[in-house]
């Protein structure tokens, strides 16, 4: 396993409260940046409510801002949020699945730029994000779906890890454990 460099999280609008509780689980000295895309309307103020119980700062980045470990980057309204190695890249490509910010866009960019060094967490409930999460998995990223229903529906490969809200904490802890166990030559 490569050391973790990035955690990407995607969630449909209905999962906003679940996202808030998962953000509260993140340790205050997280060694990687967290990049979060949440379906939203143009007027939702999200950064403040999502940051209420989160030990890390939750920011809506400007284009080309650097990704700093220990911060949560929330996709601003009206833009796709992509990652480009060490920085964010905003995009005004057309909405996908009727959404901008989109979840597929974020996962796809994480797959391209970080591959096996990225971990992806998708909150189930929307078709957006499923293809992107599979792309990230295909590039060696560690991925999991949170929610009652398998996000892929019938016919998707069953290898993707399924979590409940209660087991996300353990998954996050295992992610954090991997880089520490890595003995660098």
């Amino acid at each position, binding site marked *: 396993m490569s050391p973790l460099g990035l955690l990407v999280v995607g969630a449909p609008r209905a999962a906003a409260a679940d996202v808030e509780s998962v953000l509260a689980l993140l340790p205050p000295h997280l060694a990687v940046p967290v990049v979060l895309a949440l379906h939203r309307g143009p007027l939702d103020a999200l950064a403040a409510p999502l940051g209420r119980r989160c030990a890390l700062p939750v920011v809506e980045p400007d284009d080309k801002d650097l990704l700093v470990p220990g911060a949560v980057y929330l996709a601003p309204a009206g833009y796709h949020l992509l990652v480009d190695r060490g920085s964010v890249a905003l995009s*005004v490509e057309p909405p996908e699945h009727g959404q901008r910010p989109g979840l597929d866009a974020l996962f796809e960019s994480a797959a391209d730029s970080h591959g096996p060094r990225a971990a992806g967490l998708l909150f189930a409930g929307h078709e957006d994000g499923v293809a992107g999460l599979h792309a990230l998995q295909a590039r060696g990223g560690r991925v999991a779906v949170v929610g009652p229903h398998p996000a892929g529906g019938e016919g998707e490969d069953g290898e993707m890890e399924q979590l409940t809200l209660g087991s996300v904490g353990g998954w996050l802890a295992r992610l954090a454990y991997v880089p520490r166990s890595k003995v660098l030559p």
Partner: protein
Amino acid sequence: MTGPGARGAELESLEVDLLLEGVARQWGFDLRSRSRPQLLRRLRRHLREERLDSFSALQARVLHDAEALDALLRTLSCTAPALFSEAAFFRDFRARVVPVLRTWPSVRVWHAGCGTGEDTYALAILLQEEGLWGRCRLYASDASEGLLADARTGVLPLPTQEDAQRYLEAGGKAALSDYYTRDGNWALLQPKLRDSIFFTQHNLATDGSFNEFHVIVCRDTLLTFNRALHDHVHGRLFESLARFGFLCLGRKESLTRTPHAGAYEVLEGCGRIFRRVA
């Protein structure tokens, strides 16, 4: 983990590099300084739309066919979808920039990266309503001749009720429908607006400054560039902007870490409108 996915990714990356190299050498369009994640996504979309299997196949087509190149450039561009698509910007421009422009005898405005012209026409409508049209010269540029040709026609998809609503939120003083005549599902903008805009082909990545301007509007255009080209273009914009002129960026674009950041002041409470003060 290096599975077939990782190997496929390496091959795809190689094919993309070859495609971009080919386009640069054959057509002089250097796409290698584009924002990589967005470029990859747009290219993959283009591949699906063209029903091609690989970037090598796309390369074979694009190298031999100028129309295929134009189609590719079109897919890569992301232009504002409607008139006044961001009402807040036009409202702030009206409130904070227009009063200053009124005090100047003549005003040159440059809309850099106009795409198919939606924001250009919105700006023209605004300047006309504010009584500045007589002493304004509005230049609009884009790197793509295809998009410019669309913009020059002055024909847009018929504005919706929401577009009309956003026009009012932007401080519109009449009705949006006063500015066009309907033709089926299309809107033909007033010839008066269309004919006084100077549409010109200009590639921000390679072409130099072509005039000195009092206002430069360059919104969400530089999102498609990587950091190096983005900073380079900001140098060009700085050279093209008169002292005390205004630079209008997109809602989430910043001047931080650009070479001339210190020469600008941000207009407080107004999104991303900057004034050159040095």
